[in-house]
């Protein structure tokens, strides 16, 4: 239906507080363009903030990749957070509510997972971590009302 608008991935560095702000801003903008509603946008930006901070604090920095998706039925957004830090030793423990090593509330991974539709963590001790989160636009946008 539309060939345009299917932009490729945007890669953003994560190396400082200011980068976190930039990632949030980019995710917000991208989600708004894809037609996510305000609540979903807020959830996505919050998830991005949690995950990007993990990349910064635990992974020693890295990058975020934001990719718009279109499965033919609805549009979505994929966010990958990639670092080559120490990795996560016990993933199950790290995914537990309240577990923290970074002085936060321990809701980073487990909380972010609840804010998106698909969530996966690929990690190897000593090699780094890639967290991937995908969300789909919940409602069919009213692009084609009943009668034309």
């Amino acid at each position: 239906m539309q060939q345009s608008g299917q932009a490729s991935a945007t890669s953003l560095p994560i190396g400082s507080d200011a980068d976190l702000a930039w990632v949030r801003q980019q995710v917000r903008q991208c989600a708004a363009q894809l037609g996510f509603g305000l609540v979903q946008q807020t959830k996505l930006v919050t998830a991005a903030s949690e995950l990007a901070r993990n990349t910064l604090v635990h992974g020693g920095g890295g990058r975020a990749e934001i990719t718009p998706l279109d499965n033919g039925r609805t549009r979505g957004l994929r966010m990958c957070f990639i670092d080559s830090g120490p990795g996560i030793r016990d993933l199950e423990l790290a995914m537990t509510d309240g577990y923290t090593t970074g002085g936060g509330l321990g809701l980073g991974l487990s909380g972010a997972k609840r804010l998106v539709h698909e969530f996966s963590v690929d990690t190897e001790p000593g090699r780094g971590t890639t967290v991937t989160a995908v969300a789909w636009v919940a409602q069919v946008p009213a692009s084609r009302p009943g009668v034309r």
Partner: protein
Amino acid sequence: MRVSEQDAAGSAPQIVGSFLEQRKEQIAQRWADAPLFRSVFTVSRDEAVEACKAVVEALSEVAVSGRLEDVRAPGFGTVREQLGRMSATRARTGSTPAQIAEEVAGLRAPAVELLREEFADPATPQAHECVLALTLLLGTLRLVVMETALDANAELIERQRQQLLEVATPVIKLWEGTVAVPLIGTLDSARSQVVMESLLEAIVDQRARYAILDITGVPTVDSLVAQHLMKTVAAARLMGAECIVSGIRPAIAQTIVQLGIDLGSVLTRASLSDALAYALGKQGIEVSRADAGASAR
């Protein structure tokens, strides 16, 4: 033009492709009278002919590309949207995807008839091969239409589901500073999202201090529903409003206890009026009978 022996070098799909291109006008004229196009383009026959031509062109392109059986062939891309609109129109008048597909099948006979006329001797193996190729191609078209029809249906259902969600969750202002949502029916995740959003919006709009979730019309409360309720209560509290859950029928109260669901800090009242009385009382509003306290005002 007649397919002569010299053309024999061309493969069947190529021949069908050029046949479609050259006989576009005639095929379109015949198809325009077929039920599929006639019932969609009720106003103008010319429009139907144009639509048919577009489909024939697409088929010709697919034939030339040799991907006769590929519903993803790029050639179909150009007419997919048009076919989708046609299926949607048919679907709205009550046709099922199967009926629509049947109508597409009806396009085969006129096209094959024209193709046969191209051959001096329709009994040659080459003629058979071409008819077979055209039949295959039209079968693929049928699948494409079927697919677009199903998509159109899914879209329709999704739209109705959305409308239902919105209709089913009105937020009512009961009093200055008090809003309520009477929940009726099953409370699934999608629905509870809508309830939560509209309730919170109402709290802002009405500057409400109290929000009542009345579940009198909710048939069962399982742990998932309880979780939804508690989330709504927690979100309202973050915004500075107190949430009261009312209308917990005895049977539901029992289930909640038996399931071991902890409604925790959620404030509950037996009925909507009890909840309203609580909210009013907390705001220092007293309601009394006019005759009992005649001197009051």
